């Protein structure tokens, strides 16, 4: 039996930590929830969860000195995973209720969906839905034919077109197109739903609420990165 890997979940008063904790355990890992910067900086693997508004999220992180602990952690090259608001917070800036500076671990910004209601009243905000994640359009079909672009990543083993559960009103726009590991579509918006740079990973959806597809992500995060 493999040793149980540890995942540290950051508690900054935003979001349902318990469902993430349960998902980590179900995927075969040990989970620790903490707001202690020292433990965050020295984690084996770090998860930044979160729901709610960007501005409040970032100020909670700063209030507790967690931002500095995250900067220290990512220097170690150990895996970091931001989920939903936790993904948005790692970008440079957000335009949610004014302009807010983010952690800046990935270059880019967070903007509101374009008006997705052009096609009628059916596309509502927030985007609350099971949506597909797909290979980014920038990846050439010829490259996909050889091997999955998700091989060796947090999405290893999943097919383009796999469904995940989303709840959000804002979307991430990375400056570097190659940071987008997966894209999704809602209304007229095609947006980056999984981001990756070095040891930093983020997803806009909730893998802990996405059934067996979600477990693949937690298992990859725990065992394969």
């Amino acid at each position, binding site marked *: 039996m493999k040793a149980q890997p540890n995942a540290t979940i950051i508690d900054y008063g935003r*979001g349902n930590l318990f*469902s993430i904790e*349960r998902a980590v355990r179900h995927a075969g890992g040990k989970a620790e929830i903490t707001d202690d910067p020292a433990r965050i900086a020295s984690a084996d693997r770090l998860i930044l969860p979160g729901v709610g508004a960007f501005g409040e999220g970032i100020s909670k992180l700063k209030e507790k000195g967690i931002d500095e602990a995250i900067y220290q952690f990512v220097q170690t090259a150990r895996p970091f995973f931001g989920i939903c608001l936790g993904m948005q917070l790692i970008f440079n800036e957000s335009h949610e209720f004014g302009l807010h500076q983010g952690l800046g671990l990935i270059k880019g910004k967070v903007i509101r969906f374009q008006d997705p209601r052009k096609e009628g*009243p*059916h*596309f509502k905000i927030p985007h609350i*839905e099971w949506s597909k994640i797909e290979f980014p359009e920038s990846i050439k079909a010829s490259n996909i034919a050889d091997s999955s672009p998700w091989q060796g990543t947090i999405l290893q083993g999943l097919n383009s077109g796999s*469904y995940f*559960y989303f709840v959000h009103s804002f979307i991430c726009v990375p400056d570097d197109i190659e940071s987008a590991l997966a894209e999704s579509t809602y209304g007229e918006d095609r947006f980056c739903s999984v981001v990756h740079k070095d040891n930093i990973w983020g997803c806009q959806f909730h893998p802990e609420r996405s*059934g067996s597809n979600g477990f693949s992500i937690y298992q990859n995060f725990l065992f394969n990165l």
Partner: protein
Amino acid sequence: MPNIRVIPRLDIKGPNLVKGIHLEGLRVLGKPWDFAYKYYQDGADELIYIDAVASLYGRNNLLDIVRKTAAEIFVPLTVGGGVRSLEDIRQLLRAGADKVAINTAAIHHPELIRESAREFGSQCIVVSIQAKRIEKDYLAFTDNARENSGKDVYDWTKKVVELGAGEILLTSIDREGTGQGYDLELIQKVAEAVPVPVIAHGGCGKPEHLKEVIQKGKADAICAASVFHYHYLEHEIDPSQYSDEGNIEFMRKRRGSLTFMTDRIVPMGIKDIKKILLESGIECRDDGVS
């Protein structure tokens, strides 16, 4: 069109799953956990648990059932019934709920919506609206359809969205448990009036009801109970294990005073419903179904 979510609703009384008509005359069907797990395996996109009597008697004993569910079921779980305070919400979220549904307390104390949305985020605040047609108007009822609040459903819906509701669970009391079809007029008017998703509930009995509530009613998600529960009872139950539950045999054989009703309700599993939606050109999640 968005991807439509298919959401079984489980009404719970004490330790049991129950089902009534017009939210009353509850019968015991079995243990909620058994049904919930099967629905999850079959590809339910979310689940809704409602404590059917919590508002009436001021108690909330759902927490144990929520804990057990959250340990094994990894799709969003909404829990309602007797949610009165931020502390109630905190306890439910801690037990494993992703969202809470609030009805009675929101009517009596609308600020609860604003306070809870600020504290926990709009995405976890579902306002449940139970609508009953009185002459030309739809009025919002509380306490499981027993008390008329006097509030007009459309005005109330707009108000709760302003206050921060993230979703609306819209129940037609007149149709609930009857299998006569969703109240399309009600649902369309509300769904088109608000910018947040509307979950249609009450009246689902046949495949065509699903299509019409999405295409004509403009629902963002469909919620049903009887069609799923009857399907489960027909396919999954070993009656010998339920000898003391009383109602199971009765439901299985579709006898007794509910005959009029079961004639109107075609048992459908989650997979059946998704197939029907896809065949009608309505998008929904069709993977992850084990």
